[in-house]
């Protein structure tokens, strides 16, 4: 064997009614812990973080997105909000558009997954606390914005509107997390392009900032915000959020009725 070792990508899937921890090799094969290869068509992708903890998300963390939303100057402090675990779903799972809304958009975001407990972590040591990275689509429904704890839970904590995955890639397998291309495609057409280099508050800053307030624990996640280029989504649309060298997350929009079925 020569050359570099394969990147370690870890995912969780439902296979024959069992939740399995799997790895994905460089050929994209799905491998179980005992070496069995799974056919992707036979699995349901789950949130790749086994015991999801607190989900932090950033608003207005890309200079260009701030401009797009007509704020005059970049924020001096990060805008952090928390999302409920009810929002998590996996790759290729359906995401719904609520009835009677005017504007629902995707937000393609790099997610840092915490791997080690820590409080008052210094910026210089912050990366020691990161296990790996994944991608999420932090959907927003702008119709529901109100100026109280904005962005409020009605906008950002809805069932299944934070798909994440397909996998978590080990931190050491991402060369430069501060220089990753980010691309969103809707029905195959590129609608959003950016680079993590344009984040206003980078991951070490966010780890230091949050851990000064509270203890971070393994399974906590920090969704780092999205650049400019958000467009409205309709049922039937297929949205792909890709971060180069990390993952490409795909989901299809369905109606509220299709999503909730009997509970609608």
């Amino acid at each position: 064997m020569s050359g570099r070792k394969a990147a370690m990508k870890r995912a969780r899937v439902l296979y024959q009614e069992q939740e399995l921890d799997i790895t994905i090799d460089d050929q994209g094969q799905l491998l179980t812990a005992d070496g069995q290869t799974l056919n992707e068509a036979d699995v349901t992708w789950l949130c790749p973080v086994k015991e999801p903890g607190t989900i932090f998300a950033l608003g207005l963390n890309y200079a260009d997105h701030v401009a797009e939303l007509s704020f005059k100057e970049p924020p001096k402090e990060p805008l952090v909000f928390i999302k409920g675990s009810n929002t998590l779903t996996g790759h290729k799972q359906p995401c719904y558009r609520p009835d009677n809304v005017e504007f629902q958009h995707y937000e393609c975001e790099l997610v840092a997954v915490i791997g080690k407990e820590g409080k008052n972590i210094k910026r210089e040591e912050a990366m020691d606390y990161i296990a790996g990275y994944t991608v999420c689509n932090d959907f927003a429904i702008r119709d529901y914005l109100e100026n109280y704890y904005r962005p409020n839970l009605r906008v950002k904590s809805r069932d299944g509107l934070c798909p994440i995955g397909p996998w978590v890639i080990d931190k050491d397998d991402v060369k430069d997390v501060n220089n990753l291309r980010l691309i969103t495609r809707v029905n195959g057409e590129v609608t959003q392009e950016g680079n993590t280099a344009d984040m206003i508050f980078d991951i070490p800053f966010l780890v230091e900032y949050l851990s000064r307030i509270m203890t971070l624990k393994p399974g906590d996640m920090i969704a780092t915000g999205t650049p400019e280029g958000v467009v409205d989504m309709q049922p039937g649309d297929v949205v792909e959020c890709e971060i180069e060298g990390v993952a490409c997350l795909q989901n299809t929009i369905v109606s509220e009725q299709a999503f909730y079925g009997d509970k609608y």
Partner: protein
Amino acid sequence: MTDSIVTGMLVCVALNDKAQLAALEPELHEAPYQKPPTQPVLYFKPRNTFNVAGATVAWPEHGEEFVVGASLGLVIGKPTCRVSEAEALDYVAGYTLVHDFSLPETSYYRPDIKGKCLDGSAPVGPVVVPGEQVDNFHRLTLVTTINGEPRSELNMADLQRGAAELLSTISYIMTLNPGDVIATGFRGERVPVKPGDIVESSIEGLLALSNTVGEQP
């Protein structure tokens, strides 16, 4: 805390005190709010905040002032997805109390992570009283004392939105599961505490949640 009553999400309702809303009314029409809230104002206390009855709640590392509010807590008993107001309380396993320790709040415009997410700042307990043991809880009064002195009183009738309405509304945003807890509302005016204070909130004959405020580091 592994033994917290909350094993899932702790969702709290802010700005649900009628008197507070009335007092703030002019301000809520101005920037940055523009208009009063049309929906329940919700926030999370994340898992690092979960704590228990009897616990000492650490004094904030980066704060000069510390305040507490008390709320009735609805403990969810079964998956609760898009339920009507009429049936909402059938999904509640029982009632408990929630202490929300936080830094004083000066604005409701942005999520208050710095103020609300301090470690151990959300004691819940001491027990879950089954719903059938609670008679007409809409009229219950929650009294908070500091070192035995009554400092705050909240009657459930003082809430802008009651438990059933809140649970129904929230269940259309997020599916709730057993072990999730909803704190239905706090007195708008939170109570300042000092290191060493004993904070006890109680509903007479039903529940009493006591916590001690930690010493200044």
